[in-house]
């Protein structure tokens, strides 16, 4: 079978220590915190207030904005607080805190949706609360509803899972194979896309075998092996590797007739159309040098990270760094009281050694960042311009093309914070454009 690849990238140790750890449900814990922003787009308004009784699957946050998705309660219980809190960014967001009663009484509204057209399918996906489960958290129904006149010829299912440590999508492929294909068929049927390709890195032979066997039953779904190389799962690299097409700067996958969805997202759609149970649970990999028993867990959204780590034997040593997501693009957290969100696919706790930030040294112009950059940028040059505050030159070095994969920083022998200064530079360019 052909192995698909892209140019650039890096090869961090896979550290897929939890590959053979089946997902275990950790059940209902003592407290649930559900932020009203768990996606890219407009925040939701809380529809409940302190003292209300809520049930599993009940909508507790919603908005009329198109680029957004409703938020549901993952438990039955009493709302104990609706207040602004700081989650992972610097801005406070409204959070609904619920004290579960442990009964897990299901809301009366839960029923399989009636889907008989493209429109009703897209509405159902919105109602499900689905946002991209791969980590970016983009509302799924927006992707499924490209602008008029855009023709999509390929549905790409992202099962690459190129981030080190994370195995939740791998477990999804093994544990939920049938739903993946059912979900793909729903998407193909209601959007009229003729074919689907499942892209998966070649360091997961068991999943490739299982998916390929299942794909034999469908003439329009194929499984493609991808070279195990970070950031193979980045949308643009994945499209390039599988179709040879390059998404032009500032454009989206649908501009090259592709739609990319995460493997867990399509599997979720299958389950939702069958049961009507919205997105209230996530499969999460828990790993890192400070976790006693790493594994994969099924977690109710809103469960504090402390409880998730606790279900994996707790910390094995004092953690120096907590990360939501992978080590390359995940967000580091200031507290383990923060909840699991819709887009959480991993929680990593590193000990103080693994979590330390190395000292920076001067650039020696070795060119490693240039060769590693999958977007063909000159990372060292952008870094130099930003630090010298030569902001006018930033657009000419295509700073906005950067996908922030972090390959430049990973590979830099001088341990320079290159992508970090690119982020700063992008923000400056964005502010200038607004003026």
């Amino acid at each position, binding site marked *: 079978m052909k192995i698909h690849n892209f140019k650039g990238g890096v090869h961090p140790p896979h550290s897929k220590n939890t590959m053979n750890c089946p997902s275990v449900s950790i059940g209902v814990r003592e407290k649930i915190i559900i932020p009203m922003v768990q996606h890219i787009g407009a925040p939701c308004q809380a529809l409940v207030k302190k003292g209300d009784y809520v049930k599993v699957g009940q909508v507790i946050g919603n908005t009329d904005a198109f680029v957004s998705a409703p938020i549901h309660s993952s438990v039955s219980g009493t709302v104990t607080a609706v207040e602004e809190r700081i989650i992972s960014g610097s801005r406070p967001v409204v959070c609904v805190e619920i004290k579960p009663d442990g009964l897990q009484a299901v809301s009366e509204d839960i029923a399989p949706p009636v889907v008989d057209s493209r429109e009703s399918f897209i509405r159902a996906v919105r109602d499900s609360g689905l946002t991209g489960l791969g980590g970016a958290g983009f509302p799924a129904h927006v992707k499924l509803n490209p602008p008029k006149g855009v023709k999509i010829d390929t549905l790409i299912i992202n099962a690459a899972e190129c981030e080190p440590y994370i195995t939740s999508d791998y477990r999804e492929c093994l544990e939920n194979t049938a739903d993946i294909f059912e979900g793909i068929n729903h998407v193909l049927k209601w959007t009229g896309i003729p074919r689907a390709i499942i892209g998966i890195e070649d360091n997961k032979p068991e999943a490739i075998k299982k998916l390929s066997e299942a794909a034999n039953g469908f003439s329009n779904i194929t499984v493609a092996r991808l070279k195990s190389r970070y950031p193979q799962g980045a949308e643009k690299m994945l499209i390039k590797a599988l179709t040879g*097409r390059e998404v032009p700067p500032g454009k989206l996958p649908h501009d090259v007739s592709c739609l990319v969805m995460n493997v867990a997202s399509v599997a979720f759609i299958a389950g939702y159309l069958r049961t009507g149970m919205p997105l209230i649970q996530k499969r999460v990999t828990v790993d890192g040098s400070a976790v006693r028993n790493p594994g994969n867990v099924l977690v109710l959204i809103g469960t504090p990270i402390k409880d998730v780590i606790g279900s994996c034997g707790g*910390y094995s040593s004092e953690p*120096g760094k907590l990360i939501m997501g992978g080590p390359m693009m995940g967000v*580091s957290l200031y507290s383990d009281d923060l909840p699991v969100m819709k887009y959480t696919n991993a929680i990593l706790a590193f000990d103080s050694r693994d979590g330390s930030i190395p000292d920076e040294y001067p650039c020696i112009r070795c*060119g490693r960042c*240039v060769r590693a950059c999958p977007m063909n940028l000159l990372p060292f040059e952008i870094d130099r311009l930003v630090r010298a505050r030569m902001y006018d030159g930033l657009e000419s070095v295509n700073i906005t093309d950067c996908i922030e994969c972090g390959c430049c920083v990973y590979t830099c022998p001088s341990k320079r914070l290159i*992508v*970090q200064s690119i982020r700063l530079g992008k923000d400056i360019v964005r502010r200038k454009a607004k003026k």
Partner: protein
Amino acid sequence: MDKGEYVLDNLINVSSSPHIRSGVTTRRLMLDVIIALIPASAAGIYFFGLRAALLIAVTVASCVLFEYLTRKALKRSNTIGDLSAVVTGLLLALNLPPELPLWMAIIGSFFAIVIVKQLFGGIGQNFLNPALAARAFLVISYGTRMTTWTQPSTYAAADAVSFATPLGALKEGGQLPDLIDMFIGNIGGSTGETSALALIIGGIYLLARGVITWHIPVVYIGTAGLFAWILGRDGLLTGNPLFHVLAGGLMIGAIFMATDYTTSPMTVKGMVIYAAGCGILTILFRMYTNMPEGVSYAILLMNVAVPIIDRFTKPGRFGGAANV
């Protein structure tokens, strides 16, 4: 605490991704270059005696000392820990005649570290290879001593009065040495440049460690060999490529000097252009100037061309070409 519960008020490392780094560090890269130069240094000491060892010790020590003193005088952080000054000192010694007076070698160290490297901002900022620039400076300042060559202790022709390098012999019309002797290093020349074998061993180590890529050494040596053949002394296509590849500083230049990160291009395309330029210039200098050797000047000239090469070999923008 034994339940694996910690009060996390010490999460000082909240930082922007990525959260992991490769094991490659500047210091480790420099250490690898030093290790790769051990065979060539050993060959130099074997063929030219303990005087060569003394020369190496003096340039290394003086380069490190000058690096330390300059940084201190400029009120900058101490950088001798990155080992780049050791590399410069080592490369300088290997590019000097083994019997060069030590005070001249120290002047070379001063020029390399203080003038070429630190006054331009230190590691990563110099636009010329420090060791080569220092060598060029010494050739201009002390031409006779910089071209007085020692006979290898193992050399058979004991009656030789004035000793010549193979390239000198070629220019003057003297007797050319055996190719096997040239490959092993049993010829006259700078301390570390004579043994192609030792240099190739070091080069293979650098390739295996991922410190350098094959592009610069292979293209440099290949281009030089090709042009040596084309521009033969007895007419077109009569040259002996093997002689030119093994003679003089081509091996040490292609493997260790031209591959210096700071003074070579960033992209593979740029490296190929740069290395080809080094190869062509080397042969042109050897053939058509009154200097027997041209490696140093070829590399220094191409060092200066690097910003232009970098500008014209920028990678194409991702998604820049219409491809829908």
